[in-house]
């Protein structure tokens, strides 16, 4: 497994303006995986990505990248070999990073030159990327005239102009409507399928379940959870979610009864105005008891739903 590690974060501390943003972060990023950084707003996702890019110098710890030598793989600090490292990393932020007054092709060519790629390589890569992101027909359009989705695609294409090993995406789908979001995830998966390691941050946690190979939950300046979506579920005890909607809906009274019943095994709950979301260990056992209680309380069941809780809600419970 060690040979697959492409990036290592060791005991990373980041202070900005005397405020600790990240503390004791340890992380290994594997080749060709999609690692998703999730967490509440201000948890340090962007800072972590910026640090991984070498844009922010940590106050402690280091970020190491795997460097292949004849003797094998050697890990080197990105901060000591910034130029080399950056030539192998692509980046796309929540805001599209290109020149709005340049055309699609001009943008690609410009950034290709910024990576000191030879002209023919730039041309070749531009053609490939225009094809990959379905922008060929729009290559001569001034970026400002493109739609939001096309802009995002171009942003990704630019991030890949130098054919990086790692692609870091900071909130790539923020501000996108669900359709475009889906499209974006599609392209990200497509890029990943070509062997690129992707580190991304997103607040669409639920989407991550289908997109990310691994998820790292950042909260309180630390990574509090790290693993594949399944591993995270397992670690959280494979809880089930029961959603109950009743009439007249005296949910406060009902909750008190649910918590006092050991058969239900209620771990947590969410009280919505029209329903109750219950997090239980075993939905089968719990359901029998719940129906009984509802009958006793003369609550008419309007809706009853059992499902695996989405990750977002699981993280909500955790936080």
């Amino acid at each position: 497994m060690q040979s697959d590690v492409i990036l290592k974060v060791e005991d990373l501390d980041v202070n900005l303006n005397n405020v600790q943003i990240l503390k004791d972060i340890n992380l290994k990023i594997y080749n060709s995986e999609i690692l998703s950084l999730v967490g509440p707003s201000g948890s340090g996702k962007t800072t972590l990505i910026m640090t991984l890019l070498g844009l922010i110098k940590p106050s402690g710890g280091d970020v190491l990248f795997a460097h292949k030598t004849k003797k094998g793989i050697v890990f080197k600090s990105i901060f000591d070999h910034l130029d080399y490292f950056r030539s192998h990393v692509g980046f796309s932020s929540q805001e599209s990073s290109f020149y709005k007054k340049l055309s699609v092709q001009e943008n690609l060519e410009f950034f290709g030159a910024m990576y000191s790629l030879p002209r023919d390589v730039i041309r070749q890569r531009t053609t490939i990327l225009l094809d990959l992101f379905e922008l060929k027909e729009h290559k001569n359009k001034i970026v400002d005239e493109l739609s939001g989705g096309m802009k995002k695609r171009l942003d990704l294409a630019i991030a890949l102009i130098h054919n990086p090993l790692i692609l870091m995406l900071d909130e790539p789908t923020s501000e996108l409507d669900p359709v475009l979001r889906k499209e974006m995830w599609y392209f990200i998966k497509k890029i990943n399928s070509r062997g690129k390691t992707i580190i991304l941050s997103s607040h669409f946690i639920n989407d991550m379940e289908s997109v990310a190979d691994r998820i790292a939950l950042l909260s309180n300046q630390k990574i509090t959870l790290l693993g594949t979506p399944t591993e995270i579920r397992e670690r959280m005890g494979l809880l089930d979610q029961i959603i109950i909607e009743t009439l007249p809906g005296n949910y406060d009274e009902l909750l008190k009864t649910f918590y006092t019943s050991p058969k239900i095994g209620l771990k947590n709950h969410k009280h919505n105005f029209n329903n109750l979301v219950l997090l239980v260990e075993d939905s089968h056992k719990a359901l029998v008891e719940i129906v009984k209680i509802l009958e006793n309380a003369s609550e008419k069941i309007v809706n009853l739903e059992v499902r695996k809780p989405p990750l977002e809600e699981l993280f909500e419970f955790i936080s």
Partner: protein
Amino acid sequence: MLQTIFEVIRKDLRLLIRSRSSLLIILLTPLLILLITGVSLEKQTNFYITAGVYSDSYSHLAKSYISNLEMQSVNVKYFDSEKECVDAVKYGTVQACIVFSPDLRIEDKYNGFIKFYVDYSHLNLAWAIKDMLFTTAQEETKELSQNLIDDLLSVVETANKNLDLQKSDLTNLATSNDKLSSIFSTISSYLSVINPKFDFSLLKLDDIEDSASSLKLKSSGVVSLASNKLSEVSNSLDELKSSVSQINDSQVNSLILPKIDKIKTDIISYQQTILANKNSIDSTAGELQSYIENLKNQINNLSKILDEVRISQDKSLEYVSDGKKQVANILNSVFDLQKSINELEKKIDQVSVFSSGKIAEPFKTEIESVTPEKHSITLLFPTILSLMVLFVSLIISSTLLQMEKQSEAHIRNLITPTKTLIISLGIFLTTLIVVILQYSISLITVAPMLSIKGFFLKFLEALLLTILSSSVFIFIGILIGSSSKSEEISLILTALVALLLIIFSGMIYPLEAFPRGLQMVLKLNPLYLTDYFYNQIFVKDVVLTKIPLQILTQLCWFVGLFIALVLLQELFDEKFLISHRNKALHKKKKRNSRVENEETEKLTKLLVELNHILSPKNKITTEEIENAKRLYLKALSIYQKLDKTQKEEFFDELNLIHKKLSAL
């Protein structure tokens, strides 16, 4: 690296060109400035000035001055009071106010004046107006001076001629004086020779008197003696006769006695004669005595006269001596006068200028240009070009840098292996290209208006210096752009720096007005140097090799600013990243809050609508129930998106609506 720089330049140029306003500003501004200046100043050196005039009483002189002004295209406006005239300058109605003293004329006892009021807040114009009005006044004064000097000169000339004439008179006077002096000397010697002293005792008049008395006495004695003796003789004779008579010799008697008688008669005659002589002697002695007495009196008178003569002689000698002195003094004065006249003559002879024009204006104070006669546009061109280079370099470089920094693409550039310095260098070269382009356009545009010899060589020389100076300003612009957080700050800083450079470049206020020490420092101002370069090349026809010190100074600026940029680049990058991160966070928060606000607003509206439909007063139709359900589901979907706190806010209301709907 070269390819990267080339791409940066290409990108920046594209961005500039695609921004129409930038393109317009870049290409047309210099043209416009040069054309406007060219058209307005071509062959035109005068200002169109309106001058206010006032006098209690306009004399011929004042009127002549005013008509002179009018001849110089000065629009003259008459005012009824000095205050009105001065106020007009303050309000800008007129550019200057000229006040003439009443009945301005030239007289010794009359203190005439011409007072000028100008507005120094329009510094350059004030000097130009002052210069123009004073020139007219000077010409007027010169004419008057010339007339006065003409009069004065004719008097001097007459005096000179008279002096010539008087000079011979003076020589005659001197000669006469000499003669007079010698006469005085002769008189003096003659007078000195005269000795009015006489010792009258030497005359021994008393002795004469005594002698006369003695003679008288002696003659009396002799006479009496003689008489006595004669008497004795007579007696003796009588005795003899008697004796002879006794001799009775008749013969003897006859012989002797007659004889004795005769003798006796003789004696008697003798006695008588003696007596007569004695009387005569006595009378003569008496006469002699009276003569002596008279002589004595006369001598006394003479002595007195002699005394008076002596006094007169002494006085005369004194007068003669005084006269001599006076003559000597007069002679000295004559000599002095002669000397003075000689000197005066000599000085008059030495005066080589006898033309009133020359005296009124001894030197023809012509301000000759050190360069061949040029149009005003040629003289102004260096300043215009310097300002253009300054503004274009500063503004484009700082704007391009700000555009780069404000562009979201910059963060991507930061993670490429290309250093920010390369991007800055790209911006530097892009701006330089624009400046060179503008310089070329400007020069080619105004070339027909400029009387420049060897245009092509000068074009190249100035191009080299343009590159040097522009580089300095571009680096300043890049430093400003790099250190500014926003475009606004960058623009303000650019304007401020440009303003400072202009103020201390001598373009507005002459550097010579500053203390000498400060002047030395201010002459290091890169804008001053730029203006100096263009001046040397286009106006003074000086070759580059003659101004190595100034070129070296500008080169030092170039190197210094480049080093500063290299040293500060990392700091700028770090600052940018922090600011970028803060901006991103701020944007995210803003976006979230905006979205939330939009959602809560929508939800509130839906709830209001639902409450209206479900109000107990209304009789709800099936259609309305369906509509309420639809709105409820909409509200529900919005509610799900809200955060915990906001959900709590809407929970009760939605819960109530839910219950109402369920009841239906």
